[in-house]
């Protein structure tokens, strides 16, 4: 499916999402990397040891979610823009999702934007909390959005109102 459409299936996603128990403990990384390609910057940039060293550079990343503190360094370092950070403890009914975003104009904090799923379909409105565009991110800004918890695993992109 994924290799015919570019859309990960439910099963694909289940393989990379941490347990519900882990998600309730605070921010952690979601690495949507499903294909064995020669690439390892997520490991080389990881400072907490959560993303394990690759035995073969073509391996899929191995993540120890108990070591990840959601620092986001890997988000803008992944050449495939395949990494996001999900914090299900953000508020009573909202999760905080940090995604890479390489379009201009950038959204502004507090702006309401469209939340898109992995097919690019508008699902619900989301609120931009923070826009990080430091030099260290090297032109891959990170947008933190507050998402209603039931959509936290569905939203993966945003679209600004035209």
């Amino acid at each position, binding site marked *: 499916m994924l*290799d015919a459409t570019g859309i990960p299936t439910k099963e694909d996603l289940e393989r990379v999402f941490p347990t519900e128990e882990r998600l309730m403990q605070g921010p952690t990384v979601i690495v949507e990397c*499903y294909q064995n390609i*020669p*690439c390892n910057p997520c490991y080389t940039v990881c400072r907490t040891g959560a993303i394990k060293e690759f035995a073969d550079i*073509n391996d899929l990343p191995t993540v120890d979610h108990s070591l990840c503190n959601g620092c986001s360094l890997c988000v803008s370092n992944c*050449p*495939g823009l395949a990494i996001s950070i999900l914090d299900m403890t953000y508020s009573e009914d909202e999760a905080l999702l940090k995604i890479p975003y390489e379009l201009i104009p950038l959204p502004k904090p507090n702006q309401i934007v469209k939340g898109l799923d992995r097919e690019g379909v508008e699902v619900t409105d989301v609120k931009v909390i923070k826009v990080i565009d430091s030099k260290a991110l090297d*032109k891959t800004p990170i947008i933190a959005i507050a998402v209603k918890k039931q959509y936290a695993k569905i939203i993966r*992109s945003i679209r600004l109102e035209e």
Partner: protein
Amino acid sequence: MIPVEILVIGGGPAGLCAAVQAAEMGSKVLIVDRNNTLGGQLVKQTHMFFGSEKQYASTRGFDIANILLDKIDKMKNVEIMRKATVLAIYEDGVVSLEHKDKYIKIKPKAIVVATGASEKNLAFPNNDLPGIYGAGAVQTLMNEYGVKPGNRVLMIGAGNIGLIVSYQLIQAGVRVEAIVEAAPTIGGYLVHASKVRRMGVPILTGYSIKEAYGTDSLESAAIWKLDENWRGIPGTEKKLNVDVICISVGLSPLSELLWQAGCQMKYIHELGGFVPVRDTNLHSSVKGLFVAGDVAGVEEASSAMVEGYIAGMSAAAYLGYKLYNMKLVKEDLMNQLDSLRHGPVGEKIRRGISNLTIEHEAAASVDAL
């Protein structure tokens, strides 16, 4: 006749790395490139590269070009000739080129051919309408000259170039109506596919273009579903209102100079067409002529860079230059190539190269040390 030690033809990722390595070993290098700026296709690559740190993973292509050019800038034994088109390699080793409207002959002691590849075209009715481009041309327009190619694009081909250029088009504010791919699956990296898909671009596998329409320029296009024999199925046509069609159906090695030099060539489908047979040091069947990058087989830029280092090292060693730890450096480069090609995506590259490698007497120059 200008005497030259090592002539590097082509200043893309492979050629630049070949020059760096050969110069580090002490040889004098001349890089010739037909463009005004060096870097080859790197200069248009705005995305981060894959691979490992050794191939500048996570760094953007144009930044990699600058890193390599900065390195070369600091080397006193590398000369660069821009806007110089190599016209011929003769059997006596003389190379002729056109530079500033002058016909120049040079006599190198060794040559690294790193001419890259050119885009394949696709035959369909009205494919000569203005508005129909190769993906590389669209990249040049957008990323080098800042010119928007149009407003609504149909991308043909879901290999890495098709997917990456689609993403860049969206970044430039252009709408990509669809990406069609004749094969049943996406050829490029799936992370690139997912990236454009979640921005709303449909990727239609098992689809191709039927026909383009327009009077003075492209106005629309019809796509249709393909059967298992890759023939269009009547009745499945969809019409798309597009003013740009971008063709990205693969590359073939730019190997004319190798043919002319008398290199033994072999047709290897997996590597994009006719490619030179060579030994593991990238020494071709012609003594003193080395190859690197897409001209030796179409692959990723990361492997082109590693091949460049290897070819540069082999050329310098062929002339007697040494490096105190040459064996170690070479081993590391070989390991890098192996690991880049080790995965399932590299499988066809490995298959292709295994049909191509020759034992070479002259190859001993690197290994003997």
